[in-house]
């Protein structure tokens, strides 16, 4: 008499139906959550493929920072290609100059404002030394954007890099 007759092999089965909705939802949500782009803050440069002005390499159209970013290799003779701008310089030590005059960081906005009161069509030319830290470039942006905001003017910012 055989009481236990059944096959003793163990059957591995994949039961899709029993895959719980909760588990599936968790996995899907996890993937979605991972792919949600983090909202970042900063400055956006959207360059136009065809520059508005033939001699200018490209336009910045991000936020309030509208102007032209100057290409690194085309910085030898910036004066030839721009006019009606205020030179806002930063040397490698992080010292600020407005039109070659040394200015304290806290006074830069006021100093620049004086020039814009005279002529609101002016633009700012940020001339920064290549060895200066990136922090100063951002500071220069910050000041320039603040200035244009205060005066409710359309910002026009150029960047130049002083080579050694």
């Amino acid at each position, binding site marked *: 008499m055989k009481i236990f007759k059944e096959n003793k092999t163990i059957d591995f089965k994949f039961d899709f139906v029993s895959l719980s909705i909760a588990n599936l939802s968790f996995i899907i949500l*996890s993937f979605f959550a991972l792919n949600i782009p983090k909202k970042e803050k900063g400055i956006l440069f959207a360059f*136009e493929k065809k520059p508005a002005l033939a001699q200018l390499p490209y336009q910045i159209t991000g936020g309030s920072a509208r102007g032209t970013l100057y*290409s690194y290799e085309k910085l030898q003779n910036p004066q030839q290609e721009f006019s009606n701008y205020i030179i806002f310089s930063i040397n490698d030590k992080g010292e600020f100059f407005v039109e070659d005059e040394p200015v304290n960081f806290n006074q830069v906005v006021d100093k620049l404002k004086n020039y814009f009161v005279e002529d609101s069509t002016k633009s700012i030319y940020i001339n920064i030394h290549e060895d200066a830290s990136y922090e100063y470039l951002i500071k220069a942006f910050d000041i320039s954007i603040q200035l244009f905001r205060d005066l409710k003017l359309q910002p026009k910012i150029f960047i130049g890099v002083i080579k050694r």
Partner: protein
Amino acid sequence: MAIKINFPKREIPSISILSLANLAFIMVVFMVIVVKFEHYEKSKVINPPKLNNSFKIPMQSKSSTILVVNDNEIYAEGFKIKSLDDLSSLYLTKSQKDILVLIKADKNVKVSTIIEIMDKLRQIGINKIAFITGG
């Protein structure tokens, strides 16, 4: 005379691999998190400069972040860049040219490094570049 005993039919033993599949999925999720976390760890050592007048950068589906830890340590798409020419091979495909490239750099990085990266991206044909700031 034989006595007929009706034993209850025994179920065939089976092990559902459902939990195995779940485990595999969870492992995949975990791996993705770890990779992202590693990327995050690299970005954590970066101390970007603060900008009071910053803007929320409108994110788009195709975006890539370049991490500039210092002048000699640059990461793009999770890979360490040996020379800026490596950016060409990363972004040169046509589909990659519409990408928004976010530059997250440490505040102590030299301006020349940032401008060189921007110029390289421009040479490739990337028109959307953003600086990520701390503010």
